[in-house]
């Protein structure tokens, strides 16, 4: 998709003014954090697990080349093929080539953020192949031609009435006056529509939550079982994953799985945790004839050795989105690309450029809640600050902000001048605000007074009053 991250402020404004979106977000902002905190409370060793998870990912990232090559060897040994994609273009071309090699007409897809990142569906459609999203949320937004607004709940921005409307518009073969009020009815309808698609698909594409170096396996977690049908029924299974999804051992994956669902949805474990290793072997009752893994870099290896390396620990659990006061205020589409929320605000500038996504790392109060819930302790606020430092160093920070900072710095670094200036400002503001104790509008402060009153200062500064008290005391 064409990014609109540069229009974050306008996007956010639209999100704030959208009452249906706000109703949907109001449910998310309480539901997800409550379920996570309950799940964490039930597991006394959760903090220790976070440390263990962080250590596993740090070790893997420090030896990424080693484990990626081990993984490739083991995929090959199990009869699969690993394809290396440096960029989104390469990933799209590889997937299309595989689809064409088996003359694919339709492709079923499990949920994959990497497929979103490389804009796979558009590419396949353009070349005459029909992609069918099988995750319910992804299916809904595919019908609506919308990007996901959340990395694990792609249709979180919608209310069920909107889903019912989309189903009625798309499923014209069904009774137009059928009741579609309960979520259950919509799930059943999606199942009815998707079942023949699972059976007809020539190729199944899934993401990968973990890639296991020691076995060459991939693991996906879902709550709908759609991933299993996607990867076992078609003749060809393609795993599309980014390079940082690698972990050394199954044991490591087990540790991270204990963190993942609790952080994401507050479940102990996702309903389905499915491992796949290579194609169908002689004697196997089912499974694909071909097993391919497309490993995407797309700028990630460039983060190694930089202040953003810790971002490669990310499990894509979405806890940072669910707990971010900015995300739950504006919704995911405001971020203008694939990854929203704090993890998106760190990752997006790295993947599509700081010029395009410059607002994202700035639209944070540094409240720190994201870091406090991250299952692998990624210091997200610190990395948002690093982006701001790069912006400042590259003079991408707006001129007014730079000028303001220079003036502020000039005064703050001269305590005598500073105390003089604050003394005058304090007295003037206190005098001007003496009747009401606050201002409804204030020149040069409309960013503040446009939405809230500005309390008036008491009058004299602490330092002048303290100096006076010291003088009196010493007499």
């Amino acid at each position, binding site marked *: 998709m064409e990014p609109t991250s540069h229009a974050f402020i306008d996007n956010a404004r639209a999100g704030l003014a959208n009452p249906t979106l706000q109703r949907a977000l109001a449910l998310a902002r309480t539901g997800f954090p409550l379920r996570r905190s309950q799940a964490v409370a039930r597991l006394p060793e959760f903090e220790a697990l976070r440390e263990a998870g962080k250590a596993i990912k740090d070790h893997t990232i420090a030896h990424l080349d080693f484990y990626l090559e081990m993984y490739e060897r083991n995929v090959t040994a199990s009869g699969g093929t690993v394809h290396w994609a440096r960029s989104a273009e390469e990933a799209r071309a590889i997937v299309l080539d595989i689809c064409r090699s088996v003359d694919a007409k339709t492709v079923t897809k499990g949920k994959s953020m990497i497929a979103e990142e490389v804009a796979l569906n558009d590419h396949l459609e353009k070349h005459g192949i029909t992609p069918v999203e099988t995750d319910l949320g992804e299916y809904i937004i595919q019908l609506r031609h919308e990007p996901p607004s959340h990395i694990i709940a792609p249709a979180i921005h919608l209310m069920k009435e909107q889903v019912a409307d989309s189903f009625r518009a798309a499923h014209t073969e069904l009774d137009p006056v059928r009741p579609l009020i309960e979520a259950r009815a919509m799930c059943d309808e999606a199942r009815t529509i998707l079942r023949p698609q699972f059976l007809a698909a020539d190729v199944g594409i899934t993401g990968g939550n973990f890639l296991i170096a020691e076995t060459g396996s991939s693991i996906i977690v879902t709550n709908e079982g759609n991933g299993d049908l996607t990867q076992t029924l078609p003749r060809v299974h393609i795993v599309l994953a980014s390079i940082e999804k690698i972990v050394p051992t199954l044991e490591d994956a087990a540790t991270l799985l204990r963190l993942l669902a609790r952080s994401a949805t507050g479940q102990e474990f996702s309903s389905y945790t499915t491992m796949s290793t290579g194609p169908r072997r002689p004697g196997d009752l089912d499974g694909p004839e071909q097993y391919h893994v497309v490993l995407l870099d797309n700028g990630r290896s460039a983060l190694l050795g930089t202040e953003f390396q810790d971002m490669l620990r990310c499990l894509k659990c979405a806890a940072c989105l669910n707990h971010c006061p900015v995300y739950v205020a504006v919704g995911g589409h405001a971020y203008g690309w694939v990854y929203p929320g704090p993890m998106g605000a760190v990752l997006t500038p790295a993947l599509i450029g700081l010029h395009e996504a410059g607002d994202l790392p700035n639209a944070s109060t540094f409240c720190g*809640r994201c870091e406090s819930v991250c299952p692998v302790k990624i210091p997200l606020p610190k990395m948002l600050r690093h982006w701001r430092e790069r912006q400042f160093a590259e003079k991408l920070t707006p001129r007014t902000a730079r000028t303001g900072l220079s003036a502020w710095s000039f005064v703050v670094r001269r305590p005598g001048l500073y105390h003089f200036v604050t003394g005058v400002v304090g007295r003037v503001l206190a005098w001007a605000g003496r009747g009401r104790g606050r201002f409804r509008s204030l020149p040069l402060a409309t960013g503040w007074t446009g939405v809230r009153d500005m309390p008036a200062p*008491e009058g004299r500064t602490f330092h002048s009053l303290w100096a006076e008290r010291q003088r009196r005391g010493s007499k």
Partner: protein
Amino acid sequence: MAEPARVALLVTCLVDLFRPTIGFAAVKLLEAAGCSVEVPLAQTCCGQPAYNSGDRADAKAVALQVIKAFAGYDFVVVPSGSCAGMVRVHYPELFADDPGNLAAAVELAARTHELVSFLVDIRGMTSVAARWPHAATYHDACSGLRELSVKRQPRDLLATVDGLRLCELPGAETCCGFGGTFCVKYPEISDKMVSDKAAEIAATGADAVLAGDLGCLLNIAGKLSRLGHAVEVRHVAEVLAGMTDAVPAIGMPAARS
């Protein structure tokens, strides 16, 4: 009570300019906790505006000024979780690549504390001599909560204020939308956050809301008054020090005499 200690008050720029009473409340509480309090005159700001805008050079220059001004005291105490967090957590990060100044930054960080956690955790204060007959709720300002673990300490001391009934605020740990320059750079988003906060405060039925950071309090008070809610907004130190009569609530006019 702990040994006598020589404490330097880092007033913070917002307290200095907007609400000096918080500074005097801090002094009173520190003296009650057996500290002698001094106020280095060479202090201005902790440097957060530059640090959070990506301007490391200016942030470092201001931080060096703070390090110099506050050298030699037993403790540095700050009536703000945000500014205390800046010194305690972020100064060492700021000078991580500057070995010439790192040791001094780490040394200052180690003896710098947020006011209420200092009183309770370091000075062992368990009660205050104050009366304030109000039903109040409490907002946990983000930096104090998540960088300095300030959570229980203000509640423990507020529980000893005569006449005060504290009711918990749902979403107390959710940011109010201040965020320094965030609130003016992204006013619509900030407005949504502080509107939600104001609604949650109003829904508690409390007649007052307290917190430990003046930035958040200015934001919350400004929104509450804009919405017409008559909720009294005060810094926790004013209540603990029994100085609520010294000054009207934040954003409220002085009583006519």
